[in-house]
């Protein structure tokens, strides 16, 4: 008990405040003093820009504009802040000789021609606004300041999705900016029930995390649960939605993914319509969708855009390749080492002849080839893009052929490994494919030790594990177990859109009909 003592959250929080150097100090009257405090709390950082201004007569009040270089849009600053303050203000504002505080208020009301302006009175807030890309306006003899939202929008443009490729379907994908991403969703679902809640996660990174759902469809309990779990996260930084995913699923371990991630807005919208919750993290183009079902990872966006019989064919292929990817080498090992009688005589003979010169048992042979392949695959992903593709394809071919000629492995084994590899690429979700790849090695060990019986035991184990998963209270194997007649219209077979009048039972029981 005593060994595992952890930091308690309150301690943690105090620590972070001290670390950031921002104290709950109120603003003072003195302008220079205020500026100095800000500079001190940012450690005289050189990207803090200070522009001193003088609001012209009849006011003649000294002021300053502070901003972080690069975080704000310079053009907006010139056009809408400096111009209005220094040129237009004297003409437009009423010429009463009030205090600087009243002046600040009338500036906020009548002078500034930008959308979002917020006032603050403490330093903590000011620093936070600064770091979020606001420009700060301070006046002398005034314990209040304005934060002007003119954040720079210079980010990557919307491009084609790179991972979830489709032949037919929309060609836009999410970017790293949360505001752009929410826009992509809102443009597709123009409904007042579409809600966006933004939370800040990570006490250093202060990452904006958006929670999006259709309030008239989504299950309230699921939304609340996700929101609570997001709020409970105590961490210094969230840099990618993957970090959040692990926090959301920290209760139980599974190699299988239980939160879907996508870079396609159309996929997010389809899921929102089924009552699921999208979690958009600032700084990454991968949006999370929870809760996710197992079958979802074997579906592609295109399934819904092509004709439904094509979908049936493709999905059957995917389910088949799911098993091939997991069991291919294992079955080969089991048959060649334990159950040769299961093969037709001709095939058995040719296999035995092939295996004659091979020094290793089938298991070692398979292991060598599988590991080689995994190395090639990983190298292909990590290498600089232009070299990567060439290396992986050529490498696989060359090594496969050379290994077979050198007598390390049988040509049959090369075929098995290639088919297995291709099968794992067919699976649309990368994280599921990885899970299957890892399980493949387990299955190979089981097959090498216990043959067919071992494979069966392994499959039972995987099945029981899958059956026990309940991400966010929804059975992971929904539409197989518990079996659901209506869900069969979108599992392996996809019924035409016009005949699917009901939404999934578990997430959308509040508002079950589509049409």
């Amino acid at each position, binding site marked *: 008990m005593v060994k595992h003592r952890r930091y308690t959250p309150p301690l943690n929080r105090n620590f972070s405040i001290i670390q950031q150097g921002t104290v709950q100090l109120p603003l003072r009257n003195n302008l220079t003093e205020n500026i100095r405090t800000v500079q001190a709390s940012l450690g005289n950082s050189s990207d803090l820009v200070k522009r001193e201004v003088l609001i012209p007569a009849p006011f003649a009040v000294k002021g300053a504009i502070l901003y972080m270089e690069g975080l704000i849009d310079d053009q907006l600053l010139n056009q809408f802040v400096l111009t209005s303050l220094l040129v237009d203000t004297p003409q437009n504002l009423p010429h009463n000789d009030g205090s600087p505080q009243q002046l600040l208020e009338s500036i906020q009301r009548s002078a500034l021609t930008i959308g979002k302006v917020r006032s603050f009175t403490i330093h903590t807030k000011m620093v936070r606004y600064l770091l979020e890309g606001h420009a700060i306006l301070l006046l002398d003899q005034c314990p209040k300041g304005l934060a002007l939202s003119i954040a720079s929008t210079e980010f990557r443009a919307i491009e084609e999705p790179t991972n979830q490729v489709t032949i037919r379907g929309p060609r836009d994908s999410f970017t790293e900016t949360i505001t752009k991403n929410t826009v992509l969703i809102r443009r597709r679902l123009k409904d007042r029930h579409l809600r966006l809640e933004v939370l800040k996660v990570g006490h250093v990174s202060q990452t904006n995390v958006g929670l999006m759902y259709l309030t008239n469809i989504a299950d309230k309990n699921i939304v609340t649960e996700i929101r609570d779990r997001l709020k409970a996260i105590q961490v210094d930084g969230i840099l990618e939605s993957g970090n959040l995913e692990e926090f959301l699923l920290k209760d139980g371990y599974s190699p299988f993914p239980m939160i879907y991630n996508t870079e396609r807005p159309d996929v997010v919208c389809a899921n929102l319509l089924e009552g699921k919750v999208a979690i958009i993290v600032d700084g990454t183009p991968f949006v999370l969708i929870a809760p996710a079902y197992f079958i979802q990872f074997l579906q592609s966006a295109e399934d819904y855009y092509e004709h439904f019989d094509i979908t049936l064919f493709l999905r059957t292929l995917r389910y088949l390749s799911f098993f091939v990817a997991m069991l291919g080498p294992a079955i080969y090992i089991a048959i060649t080492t334990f159950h040769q*009688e299961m093969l037709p005589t001709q095939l058995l003979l040719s296999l035995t002849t092939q295996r004659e010169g091979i020094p290793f048992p089938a298991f070692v042979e398979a292991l060598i080839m599988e590991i080689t392949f995994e190395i090639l695959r990983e190298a292909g992903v990590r290498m600089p893009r232009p070299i990567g593709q060439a290396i992986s394809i050529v490498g696989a071919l060359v090594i496969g052929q050379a290994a077979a000629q050198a007598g390390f492995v049988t040509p049959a084994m090369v075929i098995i490994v290639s088919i297995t590899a291709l099968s794992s690429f067919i699976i649309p979700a990368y994280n599921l494919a990885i899970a299957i790849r890892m399980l493949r090695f387990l299955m190979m060990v089981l097959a090498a030790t216990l043959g067919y*019986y071992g494979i069966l035991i392994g499959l039972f184990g995987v099945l029981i594990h899958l059956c026990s998963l309940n991400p966010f209270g929804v059975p992971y194997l929904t539409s*197989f177990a518990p079996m659901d007649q209506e869900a069969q219209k979108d599992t392996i077979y996809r019924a035409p859109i016009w005949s699917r009048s009901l939404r999934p039972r578990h997430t959308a029981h509040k508002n079950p009909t589509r049409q």
Partner: protein
Amino acid sequence: MNKNSITHQQFTKIVALDIIGVSILSVPSIVIDIAKQDAWIAALLASFFGLLLAGLLYLFGRLFTGQTLIQFCQHLLGKYLGNGIALLYIFFFFIGSTTLLWDIGQFTTSSVLTDTPRLVINFTYLIIVIASVRLGVVTIARSAEILFLVFLGIYVVFSILILPQIHLENIQPVLEATTPALGQAAFILLSFTSLTLFRLLMFYPQHVPPGRATARAFLVGTLIGNGVLLVIIVLSILALGTQLSPLLAYAGHTLARVISVGQFIERIEGTMTTLWYISMLIRITLYFHCLVVGFAQVVRLSDFRVVTLPLGMIVLLFSLFIYPDFDYAAKWNREVWPLYAFTHGVLFPLLLAIVYWFRNSSLPAAEQKESPSQTS
């Protein structure tokens, strides 16, 4: 939807797989040995009594009002007598788990993996069983649902592939078996199917709400299970004959061996083996579930998972030698097991129901008002 409840579809499939259980491989030989070519009549008889039993079990389970069989005993008979009966049941569950696990080891070491020690086989299988028991009834129900699909798929293909091998004359002459032979065959078959179905009483009253749908699940599940067995028995008679079938320890397994389609689909015993492993998984898991949950309820533990691993170790140990050899097992299955199963599956429940009826009619009205659902 309640997170802890089992759907009626799932329950139907559990009942079906549970009834098929061990029987699909070895039982056809015994039944055909006794009733010869009329074994199918015995199977029909067994189905009839099976349906009757399923109905009775359903009605009996309704008396429990959400308790398990063990809790019902304790509640009804008091601390000493109740726990005594409960211990007898737990002992029964223990025997069930160990003998079935022995079957797994015996079959696997004799037909699938001849060089592997029995300990390894039993150990690996038991790990799966323990894992599913620890994960809970809902997980078991869901996996039963998927396993049932797989089972049915393989079973249908298998039955179609066997059709070219059948010889209709094997079933003649019809109705030659004596009444005692038919009775005994049906009794033995019943002891492997519906007589031990009472293990469902260890979770069904808690997780499946009573009602017409549950009763239907009981009956439909029994029908499916018995239908599957009937077809296997008929196919054994037709394809293997009454001379060969009794000699084979695992007639069902040999049945798969004779399949030969176009010189290519041959030696597909694996299919039959898979079927057997699937139905066995459900049955052993339920037995073991009953064992640990029953034990935990007798000694009143808050969580049954605590004792799963130690009890699993004991079950594993006894599964190595519970039958000294195959002949002992054959004799036991024919002579002792049916009576033993009958005692726990029919006699005790009947006694319990009678006691319940007496106690309930003499209970003061106030207590009845308190729990009105008890009067069914």
